[in-house]
């Protein structure tokens, strides 16, 4: 069964929002903060927070993963799903209005467009966090836990997998999320991800950037 739900707005993490815009939280100027706040209040009421999801078994052979709806080779995801026999597959979006705001200000005010980009990134990540937290809590009744989420395009998990995900979750009908020919999503501030269901509680890595190979990343912690 594929489920769909509309969520209430998760709390805003201003620090993350500013970081996505390229500002260090403590060093942002008064003008930068004011503009960030103005953008936030302009868009907040127009966003919608929708998620659709399903629960699927996973079979593993080497680095080949079989979810029933899709078969993929990925060393990264195989490692991520260690100890998991099931997954939650979800798609989340904050809707089209953020894209409209970004487009509106792209030429009119690139600074605002930048902040809308950043707010969009922060909002969709916060929605994913809220969804995973809710699912994690529900699974505790079964004595199960969630692993960190993993998306097509991360590491060696092919973006091609988006096609299978969109087919099985029926994203367009359930939450109004569509896939472009170049495998990008519209609305753009959206996420699809696989979350492993494990019998053991996942211990957060101290340095969450440790697993990533992009050593040159500005966001590297």
């Amino acid at each position, binding site marked *: *069964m*594929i*489920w769909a739900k*509309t969520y209430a707005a998760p709390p805003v993490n201003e620090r993350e929002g500013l970081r996505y*815009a*390229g*500002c*260090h939280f403590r*060093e*942002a*100027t008064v*003008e*930068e903060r004011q*503009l*960030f706040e103005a953008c936030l209040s302009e868009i907040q009421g127009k966003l*919608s927070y929708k998620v659709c999801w*399903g629960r699927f078994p996973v079979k593993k052979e080497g680095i080949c993963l079989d979810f*029933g*709806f*899709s078969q993929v080779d990925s060393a990264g995801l195989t490692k991520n799903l260690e100890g998991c026999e099931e997954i939650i597959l979800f798609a989340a979006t904050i*809707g*089209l*209005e953020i*894209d*409209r705001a*970004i*487009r*509106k200000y*792209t*030429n*009119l*005010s*690139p*600074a605002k*467009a*930048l*902040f809308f*980009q950043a707010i969009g990134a922060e909002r969709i990540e916060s929605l994913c966090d809220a969804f995973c937290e809710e699912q994690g809590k529900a699974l505790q009744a079964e004595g199960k836990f969630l692993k960190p989420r993993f998306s097509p395009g991360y590491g060696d998990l092919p*973006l091609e997998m988006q096609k*299978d995900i*969109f*087919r*099985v979750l029926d994203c*367009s*009908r359930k939450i*109004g999320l*569509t*896939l*472009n*020919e*170049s*495998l*990008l999503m*519209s*609305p753009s501030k959206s996420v699809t991800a696989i979350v492993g269901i494990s019998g053991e509680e996942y211990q957060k890595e101290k340095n969450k950037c440790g697993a990533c190979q992009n050593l*040159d990343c500005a966001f590297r912690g």
Partner: protein
Amino acid sequence: MNVLDYLKNNIIYMDGGMGTLLQAEGLQPGEHPERWNLEHPEVIIKLQKMYFDAGANIINTNTFGANSLKFDQEELEEIIKAAIANAKAAAAASTGVQEKFVALDIGPSGRLLKPYGDFDFEEAVAVFAETVRFGVKHGADMVFIETMNDSYETKAALLAAKENCHLPVFVSNAYGEDGKLMTGASPASMVAMLEGMGADAIGVNCSLGPKALASVVEQYLEKASVPVVLKPNAGLPREVDGKTVFDVLPDEFSDDVAGLIAKGVRIAGGCCGTTPAYIEAVVEKTKGRKPLPVEKKNITCVSSYTHAVEFGASPIIIGERINPTGKKRFKQALVENDIDYILNEGLTQQEKGVQILDVNVGLPEIDEVEMLKKVCFELQAIIDLPLQIDTSDVAAMEQALRRYNGKAMINSVNGKQENMDAIFPLVKKYGGLVVALTLDEGGIPDTAAGRVAIAEKILKTAESYGIEKKDIIFDTLAMAISADPNAAKATVDALHEIKHRLGCHTSLGVSNISFGLPNRDAINSTFFAMALENGLSAAIMNPFSGDMMKTYFAYRALHGLDENCGDYIDFASKYVPAAAATTVTQLTAASASEEYKSALQKAVVKGLKDQAGELTAKLLEETAPLEIVQNEIIPALDIVGKGYEEKTVYLPQLLMAAEAAKSAFEKIKASMSTEKGEAAAKCSFVLATVKGDIHDIGKNIVKLLLENYGFDVTDLGRDVAPEVIVEEVKKQHAPLCGLSALMTTTVPAMEETIKQLRVEAPWCKVVVGGAVLTQDYADRIGADKYAKDAMESVRYADEINAGLRE
């Protein structure tokens, strides 16, 4: 019997859900249900027969996703042929004695249309058209377009149906909890658009249960003049003991649906989670009931992709400023293809409170068909106001109407037979509210009676084209009183008669009245008040005119159209007479400080857009434009740019400063286009995001900074093919080309572009940037320069430009 004939005197029942039933029969997640028409016809026939047995009149074929995006042509035809045959076999096998019809079912494509997706409108029309043609060929009785959650895609599907068959077409949309489509359309806007295009019945399906959909359905019943469809879900799904159950059971479902049939719904069925038991219960509770008649609502309205604007007692303001007539700067923008300038004219009018935007981009030296299409498209990407498409070029009108997302206002038709024969077919096909000018082959009559006579002729001709009175709004033509002292009276008298005797809405381009006179606002606003008092429904006017807006708000308050005078009070509190506005001198004194060389420099560094513009305007009174650029703006940009490179300034501040500089440049540009002499611009720079990539924020930042630093930038946009980039570089003999890519998958397109540039334009230096690029990548694909950020692109461009001068 035709389904429309049957509908005249009967409630029509439709089928219920198919997906859940097919899953119970073994359909796997992700499997295409449409293939079951061929692989398991006996299952499809069995389920559809159950719906006929339950009393359904219309069965939708199992073709929800049957389109050429998912199946090749041969398989598509096989599927549709089998699906119709299956539904007909079910009808033949059913014991039900009711009238039975088979509807070709068309669901959404699963792709989002441009501008926010990558699916072109005409491509979408072509995809739906193919499905429709197969449906007609294999004998469907009607077309049912359903579960559409985007207004633009709905329009594409309906247009495809209308252009490829004469079958009845019902259209049903899927609304969210907020009572809107996913892309923002309200029920009133959908009713306006779909009725305008000639849908035979319209309504609502999927998403929610009948209680949750009731308010949307009631809005349809209030606005629609065609029969209303309702096909709700069985509420929301829940999991009970590992099984999926829906929370609204047949008894409650049929009570709710019967209640809405009593309010006027004429076509009822079910969607996700409903089964033959649900349909049977609905039929049982309502069978034999005399249906409520479908009444004409006579609503005069236009719509955008979000909302409808109705013409009624409160006057409507139509913003007139997107028009090159008498505007040098606007003409320049059209010639230079400066769409941003035009969009800005739309945005500022929206801020001033106009409800509709007039769009006129006619200029002899440009291709009006392409320009009008483009401007309407770009306006609809960022502004949710309905548009009034204003052109005398019939081809341009048709192209713009075809792609317009909503029901447009059409400016204009007149009483000349030839003109009516050209315009009315477009109104009939695409829908629209058409402005009718009271002139004909004999010119503009001097008298009110003459103009009213033309209006009557126009109404009669419109009727012969099947266009109703409510979709015509008359403009009785304001003429200059400086030329004819009785001009205002004739216009207003004709207006009064058309409004009160003919019962039609009216509109005027108000400002023509004062042509040739001083202090035109005084005449305009008084004439505006006279016209309003005599029944003017809408005015095409300049919302920046304080006098006109005063009249507008005062009229509404005086006529009891403004609750508690709220809008008037709000307007009055913001309204500042020209003389009392803050002078720039005060501003200058207040903001210069020791840290900065001048107030302008400070405004730019701090990113204060409005101040930067005002200070520049003031400086221009005494200083040469180029001197301001060299001594004030560029040094200020350098301060910020250097700070950014040294990491003491962050990206947002850099952009805010660039915007302030741009606002200063806009003033300089305006002053230079009135003076002679060209700016000593730096060399040309062609900029694009490469093919396959739609990310453009980085590219736009580079563009803004390059423009600030005086480069002649041509921005080709995003997803640009190598050939297009090469062509432009060659055309301009551009010494610099910037390419941006964000995704690893599009770096090959960048490499290909560079390869072609090397062959066709060997003189051109190529600078590349974007999230995935590194020095290493840039070297490998043969770029001349890897720029890690926008400032580095500027520095490199300056270097090349200096080299050219030497």
